[in-house]
């Protein structure tokens, strides 16, 4: 079994990067955008590993370990931030956050409205445990 040559890895890395970039530019859901950014990052990381293996130099792999660690930290922080943003607007649409534009610029409004989100099924709820269940009022027989 011959080892795969370098450009195979590079093609996969480039594909990952391109998919991530396209997703980042086209999707408006904050979490999806974030995942796309992660994908671009992994494409780059794959490049590093591939080159590292090809040249027999361990630096690229060490670098990649750091990239993965940092990405994990980012994920934690980014998700916390998204949670806060969601609480303000009850939505994850990125175009709702345009406040850092020039003061006299009009807000950009999308002509096409977003597709209606599917109606969410209410979550099934369990009855709270540890409480005394409500009972009908006892009536004393006279």
């Amino acid at each position: 079994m011959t080892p795969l040559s370098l450009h195979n890895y590079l093609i996969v890395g480039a594909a990952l990067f391109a998919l991530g970039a396209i997703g980042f530019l086209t999707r408006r859901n904050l979490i999806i955008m974030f995942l796309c950014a992660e994908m671009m990052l992994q494409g780059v990381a794959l490049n590093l590993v591939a080159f590292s293996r090809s040249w027999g130099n361990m630096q690229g792999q060490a670098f990649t370990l750091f990239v993965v660690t940092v990405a994990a930290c980012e994920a934690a922080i980014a998700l916390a931030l998204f949670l806060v943003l969601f609480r303000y607007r009850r939505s994850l649409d990125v175009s709702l956050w345009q406040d850092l534009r020039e003061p006299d610029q009009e807000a950009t409004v999308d002509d096409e409205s977003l597709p209606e989100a599917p109606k969410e099924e209410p979550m099934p709820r369990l009855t709270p445990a540890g409480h005394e269940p409500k009972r009908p009022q006892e009536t004393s027989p006279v």
Partner: protein
Amino acid sequence: MLPDLWLIPALPLAAAAITAFLGPRYLRQQSHWPCIIAIALSCVLSLFVWNGVAGMGEEQVAVGQYYSWFRAGTVDIGFSLRADALTAAMLVTVTFVGSWIAVFAVGYMSHEREHNAGYARFFAAVALFIFSMTGLVLADNYIVLYAFWEGVGLCSYLLVGFWFAKPSAAAAARKAFLVTRLGDVGFFIGIMLLWSSFQVPTASGGWSLEFDGVFGHAKQVAATNPGLVATICLLLLCGAVGKSAQFPLYVWLPDAMEGPTPVSALIHAATMVTAGVYLIARSMPLFHLVPGVLLTVACIGAFTALLAALIALTQTDLKRVLAYSTISQIGYMFLALGSANEASLVAAAVIAGMFHLITHAFFKALLFLAAGSVMHSMGNVIDMRRFSGLRFALPTTHWTFLCGALALAAIPPTAGFWSKDEILGVTLHASHSDVPGAWLYVWLFAVGLITAGLTAFYTFRAYFLTFHGELKTPPEAGEHVHESPGVMLWPLRVLAVGALFLGLILGPTHILAHFLEVHWFARSFPGLHAPEGGHDIVLMVASSLVGLSGVAVAWWMYVRSPGLAGQLANRVQTLYQLSLNKFYVDEFYHALLVTPMNMLARVGRVFDTYVVDSLVDLVGHIPRLGGQLLRPIQNGLVQFYALAMMLGMTVFLGALVLRMVR
């Protein structure tokens, strides 16, 4: 034993700083104390200086060289003070009169005491003025003298404009500052000429402008280049004319009466306006080399004396009468100094001028303070047509004003008589010299004598109008007219004693003459001998007769038959109007100088707003325009930014790849 000279200006300076910084918040209604204490201490020190100078040898002078102020190229200006007889006489006068005026101001400014900041500001400025004035007379070179010279100008501006919310006071302050500045420019050019042409070497290898060095070189320079010395003297005269309110730059002084009355007494009568006289007296070793300039000095003095006296005849504002009389009396001092056209007359001329300066400081300060006391009682009304017959309502003010009026009218044996007599005497002597143009001094003497009569007339006109006749008070004075408080009356009494007896003490006894001869003249004019001055009995009788007749005419016209003045005014309506309107000099200046300057200023303003400003605005608009173009890019959309980044990167990498491929 001489005290440290620097203490004399330093004490009032410290008082000014303390009052300015602590006055409004901590001293409040007690803000006058630092000022009064400091001036009084300076006065005591000045008396020690007088005593110390009197104890020195003939050619000695006390010089305090403190530090090198600045060095630029070959100039080496040290901050140095000196004390000789001229300085000592000026110092004692300034600080003595100044301390009593400061005491008077406590009472006069009592309305101001409620507004703490104004009260403290007043006394801070007065202390600063005394600092500048004592520094001016102590200065040992022309540059230090000039610095203090501007200092007194500044204090005058601050104090004339003390009630700056009043438009007339603000305008008067500005006028005083600008008109004197006109003279100061000449003065400064004169100093520069002195520096460039005299080249007096100092120990450190530079050139200085120290009096001794300059005067030592004067004869040598005058021998090679007499025109240069004449130019320098004329330029110095320019400064003196501006500061001492002489023709043609006298117009600021009557307007300066807008300031509080103690300021008029201190700055615009007793001390600052005599700085010009002091300057000429100090520079006499230069002036006496050019008799032509001295003749100019004398002519300016005599003409100013006559002109101001003629204007004073018809003024109805008591303070303005006194202001014109100040101009007139300083004219006398200039006349005296200008009479030094012969070497043998130099000592007598300067002694006469300085003597009149000292006595004038006393009696004019007294008159102003008494006028201030009248003003205080009359609810700030100073127009003599609105009050009269105050002699029983304000007894102390009346008596002290009378003392001052007698001295100003030169009635023997008051102070003014002795000093004015010396001036007329020295003018008469000058006409006997064989210098070209000496015959003119006879006419100047005649002008002086006529002016003496006019002085007596207008002084007593003011006195009779104010204090005699029926009791009449303006409604502003209130129901019950009351005499001023003691804090205002005691300075009046002290100065009245001075006005009456100072001439008798200093004049016939030759105390001042001897003091100046030994401790100033002998050093400034080595080799010259001052002849023993005597009093001309005929002249004394003549001048006192002129003075008495002036008083008598005033009495006749304003007490005996009060209608006479009005009839006379109607008879010579043209002359009366001329005098009343101050010979239209102000209007003349306004048309000739002020209006064109205003036009120029207006043109400049138009040019500034429409040409200079629009150019500047244009430069400011260019970045704004660029910003306008680039602004849509900043739309706040994260994905737009990401797209821009990506496109930019693509372009950059594309270019890179293309370059590598090629």
